[in-house]
């Protein structure tokens, strides 16, 4: 139920990293011809040490400080949850707001470099209600980027429909970013850029001012310790490398397992 995206429990506790305890075993020579238990169990000190590695994951501590400060009486730990048995005539299943996505090509350095972000994060950043109030900045250092690259997250993508819609999103995001940011260059790199230009020929004028490149991103590296991201991409049968201050990765949406299960169970499409 209460959902949180994985990998988000990132408090830099001081005992991190510390490796997991290993289970002691009897040697292979001692095993042949008998059925003696192989694993001998943790000694006490090891067990205690291992138990201490537990992060005791917990969100609200139940400390009641907010309650003590709340002079409106709006906080109430006694408001109960409810269990409802409801009957409906019809159901519409939508994908919800998980915003989960398929794995991103590891070479692109998402999860490694803080200035490689997803199109979903970029979308929030561009929103006036978002975390930066619509300011385009690099999450690595809070600086306004001079050059942004928007690329496909996985290279050998065969799903044309996905490639198209994510490129549309990429184009729209760059339209917004360019509008909000001075002296900004955006490079859009996509494998369907030719057919995209044909399909949206009516918007040709709008598109022509954008740097759309037919190509596939290959890898990303940081130049020096604090340098820009250096992106290598293949275009027209050649590899090219360019520097960027921010890399936006176009993701492929993944519907949550619960919704998939629901759709299967009710034998009904997701809208």
């Amino acid at each position, binding site marked *: 139920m*209460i*959902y949180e995206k*994985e990998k988000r429990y*990132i408090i830099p506790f001081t005992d*991190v990293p510390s*490796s*997991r*305890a290993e*289970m002691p075993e009897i040697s*292979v020579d001692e*095993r*042949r*011809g008998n059925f003696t238990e192989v*694993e001998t169990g943790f000694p*006490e000190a090891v067990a205690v040490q*291992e*138990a201490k590695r*537990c*992060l005791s*994951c*917990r*969100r*609200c*501590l139940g400390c009641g*400080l*907010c309650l003590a*400060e709340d*002079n409106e009486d*709006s*906080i*109430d730990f006694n*408001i*109960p949850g409810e269990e*409802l*048995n*409801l*009957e*409906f*005539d*019809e*159901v*519409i*299943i*939508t*994908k919800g*707001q998980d915003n989960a996505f398929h794995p991103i090509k590891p070479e692109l350095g998402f999860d490694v470099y803080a200035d490689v972000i997803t199109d979903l994060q970029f*979308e*929030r*950043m*561009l929103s006036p*209600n978002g*975390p930066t109030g619509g300011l385009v900045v690099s*999450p690595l250092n809070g600086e306004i980027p001079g050059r942004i690259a928007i690329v496909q997250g996985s290279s050998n993508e065969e799903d044309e429909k996905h490639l198209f819609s*994510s490129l*549309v999103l990429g184009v*729209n995001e760059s339209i917004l970013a360019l509008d909000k940011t001075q002296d900004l260059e955006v490079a859009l790199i996509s494998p369907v850029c030719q057919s995209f230009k044909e399909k949206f020929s009516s918007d040709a004028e709008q*598109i022509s001012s954008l740097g759309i490149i037919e190509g596939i991103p290959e890898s990303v590296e940081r130049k020096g310790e604090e340098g820009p991201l250096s992106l290598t991409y293949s275009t027209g049968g050649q590899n090219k490398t360019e520097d960027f201050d921010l890399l936006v990765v176009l993701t492929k949406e993944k519907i949550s397992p*619960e919704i998939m299960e629901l759709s299967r169970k*009710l034998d009904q499409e997701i*809208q």
Partner: protein
Amino acid sequence: MKDKKMLIVGGGLEGVGAALENADKGADVTIIEKFADLGAERIPRDRLIKPGEGFVKPDLEKLRNQSNVKVLPYSDIKKISRDNDKIQTRIVKHSLLVDNSKSSEATKVGIKVCPVNMYDDFDEGLSFRTAFDYYNSETGNYNIYKEDMPACQRGCPINLDIRLYAGLIADGRYAESLAKIREKLPIPGSIGRICPHPCETACNRQYLDEPISICFLKRFVADVEINEGIEPDYETPEQKYSEKIAIIGAGPSGLSCAHDLARMGYENIKIFEALPVPGGFLQVGIPEYRLPKKLLGREVALIEKMGVEIQYNTRIGKDIAFEDLKKEYDAVFIAAGCHKGLKLRCPGEDDFEGIIDCVTFLRDQALGNIKDVKGKLIVIGGGNAAIDSARVGWRMGYDEVYILYRRTKKEMPANPWEVDAAEHEGVKFQFLAAPVEILGENGKVTGIKCVKMELGEPDASGRRRPVPVEGSEYVIDAETIVGALSQGTDLSFLPADHEFKLTRRDTFEVDEETGATNLPGVFAGGDVATGPDIAIRAVAGGKLGALGIHKYLRSK
């Protein structure tokens, strides 16, 4: 359309749009959303935009004013089914713990004082929020982020309170830790040795370094009790119930069901077990070197001490008819497991002595019924049962032990640590090989004809499908061949004209919330309902059945 009741699953932009559209037509709409509030504005993905009109906003204002739309945030669908054109649901709505009709600008202080920082889901992790905060800045509705359980506990099929029992171990309070585990799990020492630990797969610490070794901690506290010679006290409640309950099978599922019922106060619980020993596959499947039977026996004895009776050497369907059992007892729980080894389905399989399925092989070994150990042993399959058979064979003293598997090491469904251990001990692997024919002479197996495989396109399970390489057949000599493909249920104990609803895999169809079968008073759980699975999920099935039986008997 008027007064039509509609459920919209998901409160994102699409969900809100669909809700408004149908509300306009007069329908009675309910939106269910698992997050604390409705969704954010989005950038279109199907058309190009102009800078000024970049975002499409869900019209939350309009939604608020629509009297025929109800929003259920922080809610989960617990159960849903379609019955005669109606959709029946059970929805659990978690409390926001904040009454937003009373909150104001001043409530914001809560955000400043709350000591808990967490990545903000709504902003895709680009900011932090506190445990008391708003989710969607647009509505500014506050909620307190109180998870109902941490990731590990949710990953555990019986939702053991791992955070607490690990904390107790860290504090050196071992006995309390074990007592806490025992409240939910009657066989901690056994599970603490053999569980493939889905909790560790979920552990948050893996994102920092490595998951906590949760499973072995359980074993540790169980071992402390034995080493210190402590006899635990099991308490059963004052309130007693006298209904008679029969349980078929003394595996983890049956034992857990009995344990939970005894803890609820049931005094007449009887387990019928076909074998002379308890534990099901924990006894006659999982080998002694992974789970000493003395330890298992002690844990079962503790359950018996609570007043559970186990009648051994009694096979339902043979010694007692199932129908008689049903008549004589107020409730029946079926926990007969999956004890039928599946066939290799290749020629020669039924013609020679020396070919045996892994269920029989491991059981006979565990019960001391295999005397003739010589020559080469070949095990066919890639699951845990195959590895166990091979490691058992190696210990029994076969000259050489081979595992034959159709795909490669990477695709083996067995736990990787088990595969490594087998390799380490000297079991030999032949990957990308499949049996074609069993060869024999004078009624005895002499070898096996195999064909080399190569990996083709991925199949439905996502694993690459093995395809035979033409003309690559070869022969391996062997005296004993163990087929370890998979297991199925053996329902021959039921009368031929039984009316149970079964799945395509010949397992019982049971209710998700009670373990009830379609016949009143009969419940089922464990492998017999899920197909071959892991012990802790069999325990979960047993516990569910106990709850179901309790509900059933108390409402009769």
